């Protein structure tokens, strides 16, 4: 795989993670447990949509085929999406949303931290901007895991089952492939495997403080990074892409 193809692929992964998770969070707007939370979740979603634009525009630029962030977001089919499986999982109850968010934020934080030292200054710059946002996302999802884990009996039960259910989607975050090898070789991004230990440290500390039990290592679901997704992604795209597909070549 040549360096340029690998870089495009890598940027698509970064952009698609932000896009799909931002989309999922935007589904909460107007349906969350309190008005304050509607505002807060929307802020996280807006940060992620902003990051999507930056990553996907850069992906289009590196690719050099005239595709910008909108073309990439709205005119690719599911098999061409490169997000991890974790972010496309349904919102479920508030505990499931927060467990998904916490697992992702902890990883996202470490990843962006690594990317701020990228040899590619464009990537380092986007990562630095994103890191500030994600530092807050992580703080917020951590606080919620604590409150739900160490709250009432019901919230504890729901939170435990959420962290258990989503656990199998976290393995993919640390799995490297030939794209990652090129990124490591060229000093563009960190080796995903090196993020695992600090991630586990962060996750374990919060989960234990929340009086929850850390799930046992087990079988990891993977494929998102290569375009093999869960059934959920197709429906997300049916929503997301509806207008662009129904009215091709219109501007909005």
């Amino acid at each position, binding site marked *: 795989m040549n360096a340029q193809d690998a870089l495009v692929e890598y940027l698509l992964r970064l952009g698609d993670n932000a896009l799909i998770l931002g989309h999922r969070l935007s589904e909460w707007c107007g349906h969350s447990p309190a008005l304050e939370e509607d*505002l807060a979740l929307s802020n996280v979603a807006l940060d992620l949509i902003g990051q999507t634009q930056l990553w996907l525009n850069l992906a289009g630029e590196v690719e050099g085929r005239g595709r910008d962030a909108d073309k990439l977001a709205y005119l690719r089919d599911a098999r061409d999406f490169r997000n991890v499986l974790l972010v496309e999982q349904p919102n479920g109850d508030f505990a499931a949303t927060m467990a998904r968010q916490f697992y992702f934020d902890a990883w996202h934080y470490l990843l962006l931290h690594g990317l701020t030292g990228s040899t590619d200054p464009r990537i380092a710059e986007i990562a630095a901007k994103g890191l500030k946002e994600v530092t807050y996302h992580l703080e917020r999802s951590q606080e919620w895991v604590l409150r739900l884990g160490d709250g009432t009996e019901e919230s504890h039960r729901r939170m435990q089952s959420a962290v258990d259910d989503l656990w199998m989607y976290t393995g993919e975050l640390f799995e490297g492939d030939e794209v990652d090898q090129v990124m490591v070789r060229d000093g563009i991004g960190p080796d995903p495997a090196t993020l695992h230990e600090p991630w586990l440290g962060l996750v374990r500390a919060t989960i234990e403080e929340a009086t929850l039990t850390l799930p046992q290592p087990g079988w990891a679901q993977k494929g998102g990074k290569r375009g093999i997704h869960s059934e959920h992604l197709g429906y997300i795209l049916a929503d997301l892409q509806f207008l662009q597909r129904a009215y091709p070549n219109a501007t909005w």
Partner: protein
Amino acid sequence: MTDKKEWPLWEVFIRSQHGLAHRHVGSLHAPDAEMAIMNARDVYTRRNEGVSIWVVKASDIAASSPGDKGPLFDPANSKVYRHPTFYEIPEELGHM
């Protein structure tokens, strides 16, 4: 559903970019101080309004009573000598 107690009310104070004192901007509900600060950030600084946040539980604020307005504030009306405009400075001295 009304037998449930709701999250307490917090008053939010924000210091803007320009180094002025914290100013009361509004209120919100939150279960505790940490969440109140985060909620204040999300509710009241969406448009770049602040660099520092204070939150105070509304029930912890001691306030002057509106009925005391006369005795508390009217006496200051007669202390005109506290204001710089009370004093006449010769014009040729310029600004003082």
